[in-house]
């Protein structure tokens, strides 16, 4: 039988379903302690980068570079995983060119990491459990998703960049992503490199906002990302 002069034992009482045994005085004391804990948690969230709001990508051009770094982390990890155990029936040509793509994405990832230096977000925890890496169809479908998504992400990010040098850098990368996208699409179905699922009636690729892109990428990313400080225009 718990006594009523110890908050520790009061908690035991709650967990034992015997809240009725708490005195009013101790009950208020317990709530007060809980409130204090909530306040502490809220205070932490303001300066801790990794909390319920997620990893803060940052603002301005740095934020956009971190956004790109996040996407390149996903791509690089995906292609790296392909080569841990390549799907059965992978051809020599596919192996060589998918290996090229892996190296390109690693180069992009490491470039952003180096360029961002102390401003870089941490390595993300990823989730590729929805992809069957033993299946060529599953791997190529995921690759198509990532490459097309990357193209629309960079296309949409261009206008958010203020430094012309960064705009050119994004341009240097996006056309390589588009080359990847076309190649992957042609592996799936020859001639689909720029079909009407990617290109509109004006002959234009699509552009997506960071929020649109991160929503589509979310199933593959365990780490919560906070894009709320990214520029809007």
């Amino acid at each position, binding site marked *: 039988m718990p006594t009523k002069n110890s908050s520790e034992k009061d908690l035991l009482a709650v967990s034992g379903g015997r809240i009725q045994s708490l005195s009013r005085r101790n009950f208020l004391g317990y709530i007060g302690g809980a409130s204090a804990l909530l306040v502490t948690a809220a205070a932490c969230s303001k300066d801790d980068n990794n909390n319920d709001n997620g990893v803060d990508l940052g603002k301005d051009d740095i934020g956009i570079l971190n956004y790109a770094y996040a996407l390149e982390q996903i791509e690089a990890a995906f292609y790296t995983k392909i080569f841990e155990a390549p799907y059965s029936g992978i051809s020599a040509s596919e192996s060589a060119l998918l290996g090229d793509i892996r190296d390109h994405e690693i180069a992009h990832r490491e470039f952003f990491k180096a*360029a961002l230096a102390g401003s870089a977000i941490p390595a993300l925890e990823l989730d590729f459990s929805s992809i069957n890496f033993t299946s060529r169809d599953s791997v190529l479908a995921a690759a198509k998703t990532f490459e097309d998504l990357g193209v629309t992400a960079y296309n949409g990010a*261009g206008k958010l960049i203020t430094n012309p040098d960064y705009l050119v850098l994004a341009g240097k990368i996006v056309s390589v992503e*588009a*080359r990847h996208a076309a190649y992957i699409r042609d592996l799936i179905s020859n001639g689909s490199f720029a*079909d009407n699922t*990617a290109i509109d009636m004006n002959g234009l690729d699509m552009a997506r906002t960071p929020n649109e892109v991160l929503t589509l990428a979310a199933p593959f990313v365990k780490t919560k990302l906070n894009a709320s400080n990214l520029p809007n225009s």
Partner: protein
Amino acid sequence: MNIQNIINEIEKVDPEVYDRLNGRRNAMKNFASFSGKVALAALPIALGSMFKKAYGKGSGVTGLIDDTLNFALTLEYLEANFYIKGVGTAGLIPAGPGVGALTTIRDHENAHVTFLRTAITALGATPVTFTAANFDFTAMGTFADVFSNYDTFLAVAQTFEDTGVRAYKGQAGNLMANNDILTAALNIHSVEARHASHVRQMRKARGANVKPWITGKDSGIGAVVQASYDGEEVTTQAGVNIVNIGGTTVSAAAASEAFDEILTKDQVAAIVAPFFKP
């Protein structure tokens, strides 16, 4: 942006600037009016259109965007007419998937022409116009069999697409004052890269030693198109060496492939000049 400083600088080379701007009093009244009505982000465009009214076509920020879009339109006309002629030449393209692919690319280039003409007109400028009669796709005899030898045709196609990618990339900075125009140009830029990737795969299937991406500065074609590939071999970006970056095993070849490079407007103009009849 200090507008008065800009005016003062212009006045050094053009003492008439205030008269052109409808008199100093009115000009400054216009500026005051602009700053009150126009959001700061739009100020460069407003300023550009004011200078454009003062100086006519081709000056100020708006003039830069007009000129850049007309440059892009010129390249699109070149590509569109090339594919129109190629797809329309009996016996050039073997039956098979190549017909569909080149038709898709032709349709995109035509759509780009239409889109850019519309955009330029919407900006209040005049789009340039070219017809088939303006072009010499043999480039003064360099590609004499361009419409009778499929491999030559694809080699020129690859060069046009890779050059187009570099050209758009080089002009992006000139479009930063107009978000919609910049995004549209980027959306064309990546389509050209998709085309380049596919044409390279088509050439690979016919025995050419190329990949969907550009390795070093290799064209897989020959010295006649080298100007379109020079500079692609760089392996350093923004001062960061990409080879073996971060303890990885990224080769020099992969480092060059991972980033496409720009060409300046002058470089592109020199490359495409032989394809325009004098």
